[in-house]
C-alpha cells in the first residue's frame, strides 16, 4: 500500500480534494453574493436574516435543498436522468484542473489545455441536453432543444475567440496567455485585437453557461424552468452548481486572456515578487520528508494565487452586473446575434490578428521557448 | 499482451469489426452512420499507434497523426452532409428504412 501513496500521488489527491472543497464553498457563497449584489442593484436588502449579514444563508439553503423530497418522473429515462446532472457538474470541476490559479499552482499542466477547455464546455452541454430529454416531459424538452441549439451556435464563437491569444502567443498553454505581457517582445498594439476579443469571449461565455441575457434554456416566463423543471432536491442543486462553476472558469479564462493572469507586474515593479521564494508547508521538524516537499507552496505561489483571486472576483462581479442590467433576449434575436454578428466579428478579429502577428511576430512567453523555436528552425533548415 | 502499441492495433481491429457488425444488422440510417464513424475511428487508432511505433530519431515525423487528423476533418464534413440528408428524409416520411430509401431509382 505504501507504494501507491507516493508523494506525487498524495500531492495530486490533496490538491484535487482542496480544489473540490474550494469550488463547492465558492459556489455556496456565489449564490449568496449574487443575491446580495442583485438586491443592492434593485434597491433592496436581500438575504440578511441567517447569521451576521446573512452570511450563513448558503448553509441554510444547503440543508433545505438536501432535505427536500426527491421526485423522479415515472416515464423518465432513469439512467440518463441521474447521469445528466453528474455530467454537468463533473465537467465543470474538471475544467478547473486545467486552469492555473497561481505561479505553479495548478492541478495538471497539459500542453493542449485550451482545446481541452473547449471540449469540457461541450461536455457540460451534454448534461443539460440529456437532462431535458430524459425527463420525458414537455417543458424540459423545449428547454433542452433550446440549450442544444444555443450551445452549438455559441461554442463556435467561443473557440474562435480563444484563437486570437493562441495566435499571438503561438502556444496552447494557458500559462503563456498570462505571461504574454511580461515577454520581451510584447507589443502593446496587440491590445487592439485583445480588447474586443475579450468582450466577445465574455458575451459568448454568457451564452455558453446560460446566464442572464442568454438564459433562454431556463426561461421561466415561457417554459417554466427549462431543462431542470422535473428535477428536485440535490439533483436540482447540481445544475446551478455546474453553472456557477462554469461561470468562474470562464472568468478565469478572461483573467488569463486580458488581465495578465496571476501576475501583478506593473512593468517597473512586480508586486508579487516581494513575497520571495520561501516555502509554505510543514516544517522539517514535523518529519514529513518528501511528502512535506510535495505539499508545500512557495510564498510567491501564494501571492500570485491571491492576485488571481482578486482579478477573478472583479470579473465575477461583472457577470452579476450584466445579469442585473440586461433583459433576456428573444430566441430569434439570440440566433441572429450569434450567427450573423458574433461569428463574423470573431472571424474578422482573427484575420486582423493574423495580419498583426505576421507583421510584428508572435509573443513568446519565456526565453526557453524562444530557444526551442530557434532550435526547431535550425533542424527544419537542415532537413530541407 | 504487455505492449500498448501492439494492443492498440488489435483494439482497432476489434472496433472495426464491431462497426461492421452494426452496419450489417441495423436498418436505420442514423445508427448505420454511427457505426461507420466507429470504423473510421478504428482506422484512426491504428494510424496513431503505427505513428507511435515508428517514431524514432531517424524518422521524426508525425505523418500518422496528420493522416488521422485529415480523416477526422473528412468525417466531420461527411457527418454534416449525411445528417442533413437524414433530416431531409425525416421530414418527408416517418418510416426511414435503409432498404426503402431507393426512391431516386423509381
Amino acid at each position: 500500500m505504501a507504494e501507491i501513496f507516493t508523494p506525487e500521488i498524495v500531492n495530486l489527491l490533496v490538491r484535487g480534494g482542496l480544489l473540490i472543497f474550494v469550488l463547492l464553498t465558492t459556489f455556496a457563497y456565489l449564490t449568496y453574493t449574487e443575491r446580495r449584489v442583485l438586491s443592492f442593484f434593485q434597491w433592496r436588502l436581500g438575504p440578511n436574516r441567517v447569521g451576521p449579514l446573512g452570511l450563513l444563508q448558503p448553509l441554510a439553503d444547503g440543508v433545505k435543498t438536501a432535505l427536500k423530497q426527491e421526485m423522479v418522473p415515472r416515464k423518465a429515462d432513469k439512467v440518463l436522468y441521474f447521469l445528466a446532472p453528474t455530467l454537468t457538474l463533473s465537467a465543470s470541476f474538471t475544467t478547473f484542473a486545467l486552469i492555473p490559479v497561481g505561479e505553479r499552482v495548478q492541478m495538471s499542466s497539459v500542453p493542449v489545455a485550451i482545446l481541452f477547455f473547449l471540449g469540457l464546455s461541450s461536455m457540460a452541454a451534454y448534461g443539460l441536453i440529456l437532462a431535458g430529454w430524459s425527463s420525458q416531459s414537455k417543458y424540459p424538452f423545449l428547454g433542452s432543444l433550446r440549450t442544444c441549439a444555443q450551445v452549438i451556435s455559441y461554442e463556435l464563437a467561443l473557440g474562435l475567440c480563444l484563437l486570437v491569444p493562441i495566435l499571438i502567443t503561438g502556444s496552447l498553454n494557458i500559462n503563456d496567455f498570462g505571461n504574454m505581457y511580461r515577454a520581451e517582445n510584447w507589443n502593446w498594439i496587440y491590445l487592439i485585437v485583445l480588447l474586443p476579443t475579450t468582450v466577445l469571449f465574455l458575451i459568448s461565455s454568457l451564452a455558453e453557461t446560460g446566464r442572464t441575457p442568454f438564459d433562454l434554456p431556463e426561461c421561466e416566463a415561457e417554459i417554466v424552468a427549462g431543462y431542470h423543471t422535473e428535477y428536485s432536491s440535490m439533483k436540482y442543486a447540481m445544475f446551478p452548481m455546474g453553472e456557477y462553476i462554469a461561470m468562474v472558469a470562464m472568468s478565469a479564462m478572461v483573467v488569463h486572456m486580458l488581465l495578465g493572469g496571476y501576475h501583478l507586474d506593473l512593468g517597473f515593479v512586480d508586486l508579487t515578487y516581494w513575497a520571495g521564494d520561501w516555502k509554505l508547508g510543514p516544517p522539517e521538524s514535523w518529519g514529513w520528508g518528501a511528502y512535506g516537499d510535495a505539499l508545500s507552496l512557495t510564498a510567491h505561489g501564494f501571492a500570485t494565487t491571491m492576485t488571481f483571486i482578486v482579478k477573478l472576483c472583479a470579473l465575477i462581479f461583472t457577470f452579476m452586473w450584466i445579469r442585473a442590467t440586461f433583459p433576456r433576449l428573444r430566441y430569434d434575436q439570440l440566433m441572429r446575434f450569434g450567427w450573423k454578428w458574433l461569428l463574423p466579428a470573431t472571424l474578422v478579429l482573427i484575420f486582423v490578428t493574423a495580419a498583426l502577428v505576421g507583421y510584428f511576430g508572435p509573443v513568446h512567453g519565456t526565453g526557453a521557448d524562444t530557444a526551442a523555436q530557434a532550435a526547431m528552425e535550425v533542424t527544419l533548415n537542415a532537413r530541407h | 499482451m504487455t505492449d500498448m502499441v501492439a494492443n492498440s492495433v488489435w483494439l482497432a481491429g476489434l472496433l472495426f469489426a464491431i462497426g461492421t457488425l452494426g452496419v450489417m444488422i441495423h436498418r436505420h440510417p442514423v445508427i448505420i452512420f454511427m457505426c461507420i464513424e466507429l470504423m473510421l475511428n478504428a482506422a484512426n487508432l491504428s494510424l496513431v499507434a503505427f505513428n507511435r511505433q515508428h517514431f524514432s530519431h531517424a524518422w521524426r515525423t508525425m505523418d500518422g497523426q496528420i493522416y488521422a487528423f485529415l480523416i477526422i476533418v473528412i468525417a466531420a464534413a461527411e457527418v454534416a452532409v449525411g445528417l442533413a440528408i437524414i433530416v431531409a428524409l425525416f421530414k418527408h416520411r416517418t418510416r426511414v428504412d435503409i432498404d426503402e430509401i431507393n426512391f431516386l431509382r423509381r
Partner: protein
Amino acid sequence: MDGQLLAWWMLAIVGSLSAVMMVLSRNPVHSVLYLVANFLTLVGIYFLLSAPMMAVVQFVVYAGAIMILFLFVVMFFMSPEARRWLRPEIKSQWVFGTLLTVMLLTVVYIALSTAGRVADPDIVMGTPTIATSDRTADPRQELGHPAGLGTRMFSYHALPFEIAGLLLLAALLGAVLVARDERSEGRTHLVHEFEKAEEGVAEEVRA
C-alpha cells in the same frame, strides 16, 4: 504491469464494451451515448500513445461537436413512430452480419499475427521504438507536440490540408442546401421548428 498499461487495459475494455452496447442497444439515444463513451476512451488511449494533440482533436471534434449533432438529430427529429423502425427485425441480417464479422475478425487476426514475420525485422510489432536516446532537449520535437505537428502539416502536407478546407466549405454549403426548409424561405429550419413546438405548447396551455 505498470500504471500506463493498466490504464490502457481499463480504457480498452470500457471502449470495446461501449462499442458492443452501441450496436446492440435498442434506444438510439443510448446508442449515441455509448458511442460518446467509446470516443472518450479513445481520447485516453491517444494520450497514452503520446498523441495529446490527436486526443484533444478527438475530444473537441468527435465527442464534443459531431456527437452533439447526432444527439440533436436522434432526439429531436426522430418521432416515436420513427423509432419503432429501428429494430433489426430480419433474422437473416443477424445471421449474415455475425458471419461476416467473424470472417473479418479472422482476417484481422491472421493479418496482425503474421505481420511481424512478413515485414522488415526492424518493424516487428510489439517493440516500441521510442528509446530514451531518441528524446531531444527540445520539447517541440517530441512525438505529438502541437508545434511539430503544425509545422509538418503546413509545410509538407499543405496541399491535403487546403483540399480538406475546400471539402469542409463544400460540405457546409451542401448541408445548408439539403436541410433547408422550402416552406419558410429565408428563415432557418430550426427557428421554424421552435415556433411550431412553442405554438403547440401555447395551445395546450390555453386549452
